[in-house]
């Protein structure tokens, strides 16, 4: 389980391989691939360069410097599912990536970070951009890897709630008096 006392940097350093292992074994749609790249996606509709561009586009739209690509890959997975279910979405995403490439003089992914941003920023609010943003605002933050990264603890029921697991463990402010905040019920 995640130890919240570890700093985020340490967490990522020490558990990065766990993240990868978890994804590879549990999701099935992601697997290890080329040595130059930690991630590749088993895409059903979109081709690999499109998928890579969408992942990078998502990193520009919701930039979390230390958030693993593996988490961004969930967004690409959901975009791919949407594209597989609707040709109009597939076309929207494919055409959008073509626009990114054209804006970067041919290969948007090969451009440097600043140049990439200038190109995608111009597309803010258009249908392509909104498709990625609208998908990502859910997919990026709605998975256990993201929850671990941000420190959110997810399902409390399976752990019996927080009554004995820190619902009131904050120590850096004074405790309220008992009339404002009475003690919890206890059978012991």
């Amino acid at each position, binding site marked *: 389980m995640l130890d*919240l006392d570890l700093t985020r940097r340490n967490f990522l350093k020490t558990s990065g391989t766990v993240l990868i292992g978890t994804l590879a074994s549990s999701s099935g749609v992601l697997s290890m691939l080329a040595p130059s790249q930690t991630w590749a996606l088993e895409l059903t509709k979109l081709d690999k360069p499109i998928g890579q561009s969408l992942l990078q586009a998502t990193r520009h*739209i*919701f*930039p*979390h410097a230390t958030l693993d690509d593996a988490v961004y890959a969930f967004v690409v997975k959901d975009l791919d599912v949407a594209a597989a279910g609707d040709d109009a979405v597939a076309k929207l995403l494919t055409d959008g990536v073509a626009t990114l490439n054209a804006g970067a003089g041919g290969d948007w992914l090969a451009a440097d970070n600043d140049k990439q941003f200038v190109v995608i920023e111009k597309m*803010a609010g258009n249908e392509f951009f909104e498709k990625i*943003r609208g998908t990502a*605002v*859910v997919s*990026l*933050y*709605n998975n256990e890897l*993201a*929850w671990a990264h*941000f*420190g*959110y*603890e*997810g*399902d*409390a*029921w*399976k752990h*019996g*709630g*927080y*009554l004995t*697991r*820190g*619902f*009131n*463990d*904050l120590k*850096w*402010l*004074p*405790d*309220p008096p008992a*009339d*404002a*905040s*009475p*003690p*919890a*019920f206890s059978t012991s």
Partner: protein
Amino acid sequence: MAKYDLKDDGVVVIIGSGAGGGTLANELCQKGVQVVLLEAGKHESNDSFVNDEWSSFGQITWLDSRSSSGSWRVGKDFNGLPAWICKTVGGSTTHWAGASLRIQDHEFRVKTEYGDIDGANLLDWPLTLKDLEPYYAKAEDKMGVTRTHGIPGLPGNNNFKVMHAGATKLGYKNCNTGRIAINSRPRDGRASCIQLGFCFQGCKSGAKWSTLVAEIPKAEATGKLDLRPQSHVLKIEHGKSGKVTGVVYADAEGHQHMQKARAVCVAGNSIETPRLLLNSASNQYKEGLANSSGQVGKNYMRHMTGSVYASFDEPVHMWRGTTMAGIISDESNNDPKRGFVGGYEMETLALGLPFMAAFLDPGAWGKDFTAKMDEYSHMAGMWLVGEDMPQESNTISLHANNKDQHGMPTPDVHFDDHPNDIAMREHAFKQGSAVYAAAGAKENYLVPPYPSTHNLGTCRMSAKDADGVCNAHGQTHDISNLFISDGSQFTTGAAENPTLTIVSLAIRQADFMAKQMSEKAI
């Protein structure tokens, strides 16, 4: 459980099983009345509820097509989801956070207290706090509201500690863990709270009062209740006399049935209730049922709302424990010197990471947004909820073209903020920010309204027939055996979370209906 024949015209039909309908059903069944309770949603349970925000959202939320219009920000951010209410047995009591506050004395007569406000369709309630007090007491006992009837308050969580520290430094005097319908001790066959933090998602432990876990099982135990989930009412029928005779509903397969009735009580929440009355228009009632005043669907209120989240150097873990863990009531009075009439409550609120991403700044992107999200584990949060002005132009109407899965016109929710609502929100943002600044916040995030959870006023009660849709008992002015049994009855919104008042009105209505039935008046 009872099973009544579709042709049985001795039953009372209640439409909707939430705070109003679910409570009314139990109260009537306890008196021996035969009740058919029609609920559009499915029958979930503590076992089927999930501690997962988006999954739960898909499980219990009313997601049938709706549209919105007007200048309110919800209309832009969540155009197809103007309200965040439920389609499930228990209605929005499965989703509510439990805050159980009585409406204040002066809030029952705001036209008298506030005077004329430009653009506001103010009206005094046809009943007073004194009239409602005995029913508030019964409701609090029924619901196990903390800090009433000798029930201890709940313990405050980390989010409350931050609120309390800031409130105290700021000089507020009324900050505590509030009156909440969540068991602080085992009570009424239900366990005490284990601080799950998923109050909005149904409460798997059953510590939170809902009609699903409290009223409906008790009604079923009487043998008088015929609960029919997945039964979506499309139309209320009436006879030549003008009295209602039954309802037409679609079952899970979409097959339509006509259930006869002695009386019909509509409790579909303030969007569906007027929608149904409007959709039941006939040759005799061309503008819809009970609409001789023209007020059906008008005066839609949704409370002045907004949220303040703040980030701190140290962790908070605000998601741990009850969602609405504490309240500051110091701003709930009417003090026009602040620049607005009416007041507001400040109540802790926490969102999980998935919902925080969706609601923190809808539509936002880029590093300003993600820098805030990076602070998630160090955030505290509060919701601001206050009285909004009823405006006749804020309406629920039938969409001209769009139809739902049953062929029923979809509702359009039109809303513009009143200048008083805006002034109050600005004040509340300022005070909420000051609370967190006093507790040592690094930064405050002012969060615009979520889709409406407090939907009120669209079939309001009034002393005079011309001013509203129903009387002080929820009986419609036009049709004696047709009742409004939910928050649609509210004449004005008051600052308080409405559920306790809806439940109290339902208990009172049940007494009235039983008397009317015994006198053969209905």
